[in-house]
Every structure is written in structure tokens, then in C-alpha cells.
């Protein structure tokens, strides 16, 4: 679900590993209960909004009993997933996988069932947005996950701060500023000149969506590292030039300082996936109500950050039943209910035209029709970029730290050397 590498996550991850070792033996299960019912387990993290849906499923299928295993944070959930994949047993029948960890899962796709094969035949791929399906389709054309939710990107900005810098601040006017990355950085320069204050929160938050829009990611389709020949150097230079121009507030996302930064009005714009609205509201607080706005524009087109899939690991007992449950949960009708329960933004084309979604507004963001806005943004995502197995690692442990080091005073040339070196090491 939400792609959040928060402070506690990693610590919890460590304890989860310990817990995993301790419980690995105890979670086998026969697959059927004494009274002959089919027993299914589904492992999710954060909030998927499935509690009521699972009851509904049990009522409709009296021979099935579903148990949900919930983990608070994404990191420990996936840590557990990889550990038990390695152990060969102990996973739930249906396992949720988040977009940020998908490249690692795709690298082990042999351990997951092809849902085209075992899933219900009436589930067609056009249930989802094309790029959502593409991202979870392997090179040999297997579908290993059903899409649940997504995080389409829009731009969030401070109306009052843009107005103070004599920049357009109404929803239509700002669209010109956020049309392309060039116009975005240009507006940033004007803003910095007028106010002396930073334009965006941190370089990594700009680099990542720019990188994801490019045709080729860190790896080509043969899993060869291509960071030296793709567009990344150009993007890196563009972002670090903006840092040199004073556009970055140098606040690393999810840090306590970043959270304070919202209250302190430390930056004027923020790359904004659908779930970020709640984060902004929580961090900026009631004092800034109505000052933040969101607009249906994103430099360079569209983008996605976050969202999950339901997978069926091969080690499970009732794989066909598990696939049936996953197919039912990811149907548009159910995902709309999950959206209403926990705000997970649906990835199904039918759900994206549901009136319940389109009529959703945000009071904090000036009554904006955010459902409609993000549905529009979801359709702007051009294509799923191919992700190599170490993609997430390079993003989190190589490129983002290098950008931070530029913000801390390292020269962009040295930082780029650091990127190349780190990426080669990670890809080894």
C-alpha cells in the first residue's frame, strides 16, 4: 500500500525477523479445518480496508474460512515475505506486495503462481489500468499479482506562498508551472528569487518521479545496468542544478525535520501521490487548512508512487481458492468499498469511473474534488517502466543518499561517481 519508509519501520523489521524465526515452524496448517471448510489466510500490511469484505466473502462462500494476518508497516511485512520465501514455507495463501518491493518479488517470480493459469477465467487484464498490469507481468508473460490500489501523482502546492511570490496560484493558472520539468524548475527559480525560500522538500523526491517517467530505468530488459547510458545523468544534473539554485529545502522525506517542515512552511510545492494528502494534512496541521492546494497536473505527464498487488505464493495449500479470493477482492466493486473504508485509491478502470470515487472531496484542500482529480492523473501514467531486481535498492541506498550528499555540500560530480560506484556494487 503506502510506500513509507518511516523511522520505526526498520526497527520493527528487525524484531519481525526474530519473530519470524520463532514462529516459522508454527504456521504450517493443513488448508482445511476439521469441519471440512477451506481455510485461507491473507497477509496484508498497513490498512487495506478488507475487514468487512472478508466477512462478506465468507457469507457468500460458506465453505471458506478466511483469516487475515495484518502487519502494521510495509517493511516488516516484506521482510517476512522474503524470509519465508527463502524458508519455503510459512507464507499466507494470499500475500500482499507493495510497488516499492515489487522488483524484488518479480526477481523471484518463479515462486509465485501465474494467475492467468490458476485464477478465475472471467478475470480479464482490462480490469486494471494497463501500466498496473504490465508492472506485474513477467518477461515470460506470467501475471503474478492482481492489482489493488495505486498512488497516482499530482502536484500539491501552497497557494498563499505562490501568490506571495507573484506566481499564479489558482488551480488552472498553476498548471502552466507544472506542465514540464523545465517549467517547474523555472518557476522554482522565480520563486527562490522572489522569496529567498526553497521550492521543494528534497532532491530525492523530485528525482524519483522524473526517473520513473523515463523510458528506461536503472536496468534494461536483460537486467543489465544501464545507469550510465540512460537519462539518469541528465535528470541528476537537472535536479542538482536546482539544488544549487537554492530550490531544495534539504528535508529528507519522512524525517522528523521534514514533518516539522510542513508546519514551518519550509517549501512551497510537493510531489503528491493520492495518499500524500492525508500525510500533508497530518503534518501541516489545522493552521494551514485551505492554504495547501492540489492540482491535476504533474510535470512531464503523470506518475505513480505506491500501491499494491495480491499474489499467490506457490508454497500455499489451496492455491486455486486463494486466487479466487484475490480475484474477488480486487474486483472494482470491492475496491470501491475498500476505498470508502480506508481511502486506498483503486487501480481498476471501472472503479475509476465510479461516482462514489469521483465525488470525493477534500475539505482540507479547499473542497477540491480529489477523487476526480486523481482518477484523471491515474489515466495520464504512460507506461510501466521495467524494473530490474535491484531497482529498489539502487533507488533507496544509492541514488537518494547521493542526492542528499549534494544537498549537504558534496559536488554533483563526486556524487554522481558515488552513484555509479554504488549502483555497480548493488547490481553485482
Amino acid at each position, binding site marked *: 500500500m503506502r510506500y513509507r519508509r518511516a523511522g520505526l519501520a*526498520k526497527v520493527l523489521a528487525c524484531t519481525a525477523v526474530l519473530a519470524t524465526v520463532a514462529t516459522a515452524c508454527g504456521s504450517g496448517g493443513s488448508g482445511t479445518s476439521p469441519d471440512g471448510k477451506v481455510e485461507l489466510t491473507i497477509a496484508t500490511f498497513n490498512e487495506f480496508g478488507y475487514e468487512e469484505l472478508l466477512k462478506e466473502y465468507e457469507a457468500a462462500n460458506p465453505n471458506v474460512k478466511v483469516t487475515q494476518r495484518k502487519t502494521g508497516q510495509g517493511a516488516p511485512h516484506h521482510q517476512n515475505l522474503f524470509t519465508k520465501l527463502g524458508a519455503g514455507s510459512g507464507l499466507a495463501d494470499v500475500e500482499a506486495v507493495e510497488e516499492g518491493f515489487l522488483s524484488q518479488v518479480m526477481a523471484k517470480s518463479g515462486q509465485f503462481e501465474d494467475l492467468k493459469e490458476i485464477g478465475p477465467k472471467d478475470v480479464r487484464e482490462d480490469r486494471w489500468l494497463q501500466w498496473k498490469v504490465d508492472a506485474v507481468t513477467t518477461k515470460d508473460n506470467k501475471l503474478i499479482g492482481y492489482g489493488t490500489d495505486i498512488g497516482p501523482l499530482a502536484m500539491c502546492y501552497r497557494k498563499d506562498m505562490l501568490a506571495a511570490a507573484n506566481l499564479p496560484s489558482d488551480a488552472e493558472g498553476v498548471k502552466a508551472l507544472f506542465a514540464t520539468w523545465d517549467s517547474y524548475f523555472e518557476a522554482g527559480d522565480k520563486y527562490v528569487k522572489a522569496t529567498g525560500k526553497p521550492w521543494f522538500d528534497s532532491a530525492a523526491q523530485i528525482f524519483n518521479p522524473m526517473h520513473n517517467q523515463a523510458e528506461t530505468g536503472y536496468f534494461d530488459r536483460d537486467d543489465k545496468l544501464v545507469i550510465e547510458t540512460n537519462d539518469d545523468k541528465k535528470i541528476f544534473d537537472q535536479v542538482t542544478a536546482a539544488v544549487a539554485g537554492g530550490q531544495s529545502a534539504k*528535508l529528507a522525506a519522512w524525517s522528523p*525535520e521534514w514533518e516539522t517542515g510542513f508546519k*514551518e512552511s519550509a517549501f512551497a510545492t510537493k510531489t503528491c501521490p493520492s495518499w500524500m494528502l492525508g500525510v500533508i494534512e497530518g503534518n501541516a496541521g489545522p493552521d494551514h487548512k485551505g492554504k495547501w492546494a492540489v492540482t491535476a497536473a504533474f510535470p512531464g505527464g503523470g506518475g505513480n508512487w505506491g500501491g499494491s498487488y495480491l499474489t499467490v505464493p506457490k508454497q500455499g495449500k489451496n492455491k486455486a481458492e486463494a486466487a479466487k479470493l484475490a480475484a474477488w477482492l480486487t474486483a472494482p466493486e470491492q475496491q470501491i468499498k475498500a476505498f470508502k473504508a480506508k481511502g486506498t485509491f483503486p487501480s481498476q478502470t471501472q472503479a475509476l469511473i465510479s461516482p462514489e470515487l469521483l465525488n470525493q472531496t477534500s475539505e482540507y484542500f479547499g473542497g477540491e474534488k480529489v477523487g476526480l482529480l486523481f482518477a484523471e492523473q491515474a489515466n495520464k501514467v504512460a507506461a510501466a517502466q521495467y524494473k530490474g531486481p535491484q531497482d529498489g535498492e539502487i533507488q533507496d541506498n544509492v541514488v537518494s*543518499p*547521493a542526492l542528499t550528499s549534494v544537498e549537504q555540500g558534496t559536488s554533483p560530480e563526486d556524487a554522481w561517481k558515488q552513484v555509479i560506484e554504488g549502483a555497480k556494487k548493488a547490481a553485482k
Partner: protein
Amino acid sequence: MTTELTVTRGRGAEPRPPRRDDNDDIGPGKLSWRYRLTRLDVKFSPYVYIAPFFILFAVVGLFPLLYTAYISLFEWELGADEQPFVGIENYTALLADSQFWNAMVNTFSIFAISTIPQLIIAVLLAVLLNTALRGRTGWRMGVLLPYVASLVALTIIFGDLFGVQYGTVNNILELFGVDRIDWQADRWWSHVAIATMVNWRWTGYNALIVLAAMQAIPRDVYEAAWVDGASKVRQFTSITLPMLRPTLIFVVVTSTIGGLQIFTEPLLFSPSAGANGGATHQYQTVVLYMYQAGFQSQDLGYASAMAWILFMVIIVIAGINFLLTRRLASSGEA
């Protein structure tokens, strides 16, 4: 356990068999069997009693230790289809890995600026707590409070205090006209910040252990020294320190082991809480790098090799410290 019980009960219920040489006329029948049982009981029961610890240790201590050594000889990726044997390749790669040596230097730097002042302060604190203070128990409990508080909570609070842009410490520094310090970017200052967290947590704990040992020193030794005209300082160096020796050795060795395994503090000190240890690994410790290699890069073979090298280093350093402490603390004695 049942066998132990019956054996024990057998001993308690029956009188102890007479010794063999007193009963030469009795043949090697029933008594001899009982005799042998008793011999076995006396010989092996103690081992059976301590067995639970060692069985547990073998399962959760020794086995992982040896298995780690085994894994370190493979290219062992979590969940991968195959794990090829690579011999000592992980070790040779590690010794040529600049990030590993950087982590080693960081570990020792943080270790030095945390453990050394920490132990000196702990001993001095123990001396203070050992004097006739008003509300002694309160003070003694007080120094233990940081140890009781949750490490994660402490680290988050310290992370806030040492924030670069909105941190309290920097705000205070600015108040006094001192330049703000970039606790994140500057290698040395990031070590200082992390060492502060470590010291905050462990100084009181060590002080209490030293205090307990201090109170076990007989009063009459001090009285004799006082009669001989020894000053307070002389008493401290010639009586207190030498008599604290076993405790100091314990405290130094445990602090060394803990200090070289610092993990949570640097992990949570990083603003995005990654195992990267700062943008250029400026405060990544060896354990942090090990975690990153094992559970983020999923390269368990490499992480295991790192674990073993760290294990060796800790044994060597703890050994050196053991010898040094024995030397230093015995300097007062003849």
C-alpha cells in the same frame, strides 16, 4: 527431566550404600547396582542440572554462530533458487570493500568517544553516589532511568534534539552565537551525536554496577589508610580502583562488546531511517552495514562473513581491554 527426577528421588529415599571395601563379603548383586547408580548420580547430575542453559545456548547461540560461518562460504541470497559455494570469496571481497573499512573506522570512532568517557564518568558517578548524599536511593534510581526508557523512544527524541534545521541543540548553539552544526553531514559531529545517545543510556547503568562493587570494599581498609594519613585521592587510586578490578574488567568487556555492536542509534539517527548511515555512510557502523547487506541487499553470505569478522575483532579488542584493565587497576598494588 523425568529421568533426573527419578534419579534424584532414588538418592533421597534410599540410604547411601556403604562403601565397597567395607562390604567385601556382599557380592556384586543389588547393592553394587545401586552403588553404581549413585556414582553416576554424583558424577552427572550437576551436568544435567546445568544442561537446560547449555542446550538453549547450543540452539540459539552456538548453532547460529556455526551456521553463520557456513553461510559465509556461499553466495547466499534470501529466497534465491540456488546458493553457489564460493569459498572465502566473501571474505576477500569484504577485506577489499572500502565501505566495510569505512564502517569499521566509524564503529571504532563511535566506540571510543562513547565507551571511554562513559566509563570514566561512571566510576566518578559511583564515587559520588557512594558518599553520604541526602536521598541516596532516589539518586541511585535516577541514574538508571535512561536505561529503563525505550531505546527507540530515546533515539527519536535525540534525533529531534540533533535536528539540523529545527533541532533544539542547534537553536541553543545559535542563541550563544555559535554556528549551527550539521549533525547529519559532518562525520565527526554525527559520531558525537550518536555517542551522546549511547552515553546517556549506559553511563548510569555502569555506574550502578561499579557502585555495588564499591560498597563491597571493607571499611577497615579505608580506616587503616586514613590512620596512615592517606588522602582521599590516594585512597581512591590505591584502594578503590584496585579492589574494583574484577568489576571494572566486567564492565569494560561488556561495554566493548556492546560498543562495537552499535546499531539502533545510527539506524534511527538517519533522517529516513535507512541502514545507509548517512548520505555518504559517514556514520554507518559495521552492524548497520551488515544489516543492510543481509536484509536489504539480501546478500546473506556477505553479511555472514561480516558478522564473523566483527566477531573476531570483538574478541581481540575485548582481550586487549581485559589485559589493559588488569594492568591499570592493579597499578596500586604491589
